[in-house]
């Protein structure tokens, strides 16, 4: 297969062998996997991809795992939902939701990156895997480590949602909660990785880990029957996924799976309480000033985004833009997606929905062009975020008369009468 040629520094181009290295010794730039695109062009076609199982491994020539994948055999290839009711609400013509809230096995986009990272950890001979996480990565590393029978240490901020915590500890790793925010956890883990020599998914395996995020972009294009959408809205935390989705679109052209021509405009979404990339974007600077996060969107509460600079570059190069959403707007975004499309996302997804709405209202995203909203996490893990905002169940005895009385007392909104519209009005 041999489509992977080595690692190079994204900043200075210095070359390194394929190994558990993530930082350039010359300039501290991030290392990136290099591929032989000419060879991939000869090996890979739309037909070959279509013949393979519905998982992220159908694009394996464009992933940095040389042998057979070790874990995550069912990760990826999540639904691309045509979101007509949300489209009607937002007043746009063609809208899709790429729904990683149902990714296997832990219901977030992280199952993509971790499938690659843990497969590489096994390939490199590590016996212990680890990560610093705001929750979703913790869930995914723990599950994949359990499946692979690897020792596992997880480091999280102490204030995470219960669903994220239990969704980690259930798999049996040693879970360490740190008094501090994600950026504090990161700093500690960098020092632990140096000292203990474990495979940290997002530290020393980062060059491989990040490659998994490309599959999110590959799938959008394949699921649109090999067509680029015109606009894609992606949330930003540390900045892994957005530049990799942009790279995915480019690679599809480089290996001949897509014709050359215009690629999608890419927009980013951050929570107003943690928006260092949006700040830099709006201030027209490359300099990202770190912030202390203060938002309910904990999964994207990263004040010092390692790849924020590349998010800025990818957004600007594509002709896109970005906005931030307040906590109230984030909650509204979660409810809007749930009540129009039946998809329950976490606050990161609410952020993306809210920002998409804002960009459409601003005229940044035209109403008559194709749009994809990237939903990367699941709302069942972050119940706390919406607990006070949703209707509580109406409690009655198991008697028809009680229900009759209740029904008579309901408002027309409680009865859902606003939903009795002519379905044709939706289109």
């Amino acid at each position, binding site marked *: 297969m041999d489509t992977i040629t080595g690692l190079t520094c994204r900043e200075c181009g210095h070359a390194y062998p394929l190994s558990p290295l993530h930082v350039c010794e010359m300039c*501290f730039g991030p290392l990136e996997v290099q591929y032989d695109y000419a060879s991939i062009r000869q090996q890979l076609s739309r037909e070959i991809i279509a013949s393979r199982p519905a998982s992220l491994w159908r694009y394996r020539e464009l992933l940095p795992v040389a042998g057979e994948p070790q874990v995550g055999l069912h990760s990826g290839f999540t639904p691309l939902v045509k979101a007509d009711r949300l489209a009607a609400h937002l007043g746009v013509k063609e809208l899709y939701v790429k729904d990683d809230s149902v990714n296997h096995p832990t219901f977030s986009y992280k199952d993509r990156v971790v499938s690659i990272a843990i497969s590489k950890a096994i390939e490199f001979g590590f016996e212990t895997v680890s990560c610093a996480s705001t929750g979703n990565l913790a869930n995914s590393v723990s599950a994949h480590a359990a499946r692979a029978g690897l020792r596992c240490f997880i480091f999280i901020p102490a204030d995470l949602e219960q669903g994220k915590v239990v969704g980690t500890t259930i798999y049996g790793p040693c879970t360490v909660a740190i008094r501090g925010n994600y950026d504090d956890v990161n700093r500690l883990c960098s020092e632990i990785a140096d000292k203990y020599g474990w495979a940290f998914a997002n530290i020393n395996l980062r060059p491989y880990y990040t490659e998994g995020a490309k599959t999110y972009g590959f799938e959008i294009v394949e699921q649109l029957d090999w067509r680029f959408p015109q606009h894609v809205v992606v949330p930003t935390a540390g900045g892994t996924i957005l530049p990799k989705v942009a790279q995915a679109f480019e690679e599809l052209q480089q290996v001949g799976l897509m014709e050359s021509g215009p690629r999608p405009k890419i927009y980013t979404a951050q929570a107003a309480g943690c928006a260092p990339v949006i700040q830099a974007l709006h201030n027209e600077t490359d300099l990202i000033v*770190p912030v202390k996060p203060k938002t309910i969107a904990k999964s994207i509460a990263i004040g010092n985004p390692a790849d924020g600079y590349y998010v800025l570059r990818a957004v600007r190069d594509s002709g896109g833009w970005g906005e931030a959403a307040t906590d109230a707007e984030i909650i509204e975004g979660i409810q809007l997606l749930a009540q129009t499309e039946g998809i329950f996302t976490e606050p990161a997804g609410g952020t993306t929905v809210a920002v998409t709405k804002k960009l459409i209202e601003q005229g940044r995203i035209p109403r008559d062009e194709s749009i994809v909203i990237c939903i990367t996490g699941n709302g069942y893990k972050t119940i706390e975020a919406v607990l006070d905002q949703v209707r509580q169940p109406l409690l009655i005895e198991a008697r028809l008369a009680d229900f009759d009385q209740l029904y008579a007392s309901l408002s027309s909104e409680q009865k859902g009468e606003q939903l009795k519209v002519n379905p044709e009005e939706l289109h």
Partner: protein
Amino acid sequence: MSVQVRIPTPLRRLTGGEAVVSADGATVGVLIDDMESHHPGTKERLCDEEGQVRRFVNIFVNGEDIRFLNNLETPVKDGDEVSVVPAIAGG
């Protein structure tokens, strides 16, 4: 006056494999100059041509990012702990 500086793996080739080195100086900037004199090559790894800390380098004084303090002018004193940490992907 001596400050302990934690050195990440990518820099240890310059410190003879040492994970912690001592350096002297009243500010982070002066510390880096002092490290350069004992471990040549350190400064160009940490700082760009204009002398600013590189984009992918984080420097912490007692656990706080110097960008929340006074950047290279951040004062340091005897017994402080300084860490040099490469940027880390999100999670």
